């Protein structure tokens, strides 16, 4: 398989690896983690003035993932 990946995917993969189980706030291109916390409310409290950020829970997407395996 061709392992060439784009910046977006590299950035996203770095977050998945480094912030597992955390909540993070990132710009659209995943280029940096603007805020992280153990809870969503913790992240939201840190980014009150920031716009256009994406917030999510870092789930283990770097391994075989069956989301129904709750």
């Amino acid at each position, binding site marked *: 398989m061709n392992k060439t990946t784009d910046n977006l*995917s590299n950035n996203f993969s770095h977050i998945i690896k480094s912030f597992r189980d955390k909540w993070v706030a990132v710009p659209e291109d995943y280029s940096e983690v603007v805020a992280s916390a153990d809870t969503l409310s913790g992240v939201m409290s840190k980014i009150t003035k920031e716009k256009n950020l994406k917030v999510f*829970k870092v789930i283990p997407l*770097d391994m075989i993932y069956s989301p129904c395996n709750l």
Partner: protein
Amino acid sequence: MKYPYLTVLNNDPNGKHFRRPVVDVEIFGPEKSINTFALLDSGADNCLFHLQYAKEIGIDLNKCKRSATIGVEGGKMEIYLTEIEIKIKGLEKIKVPVGFIDSRSVNGLLGQIGFFDFNRIKFERDHGTFEINPVK
């Protein structure tokens, strides 16, 4: 609307990268909205979002219908069902039934009920893209 698959590097240097149909989505509640992402999951019955989103956007869990969902391992987990508005990047805002769940492995999933019902989804994994087209 066409979207690229998102690639996640495999921790195993000999393993293939994971490519996933992920879309940016804004979820709306009575108090606020949050931008996040969701995975298109044709195997999921319901759209699911992590429980913490419900609290943050102002969903009253006491007014949600309680149900349970079973994963591939057979474990049962409680979900809080309600209806919210979501907006996928590039598409119109829509109202969908969702379940909120306290699960380590769920951020956002877009499943059959209420999402695949009203959108024609075309996976072209061999081209690294997928399409979401609302059904009028």
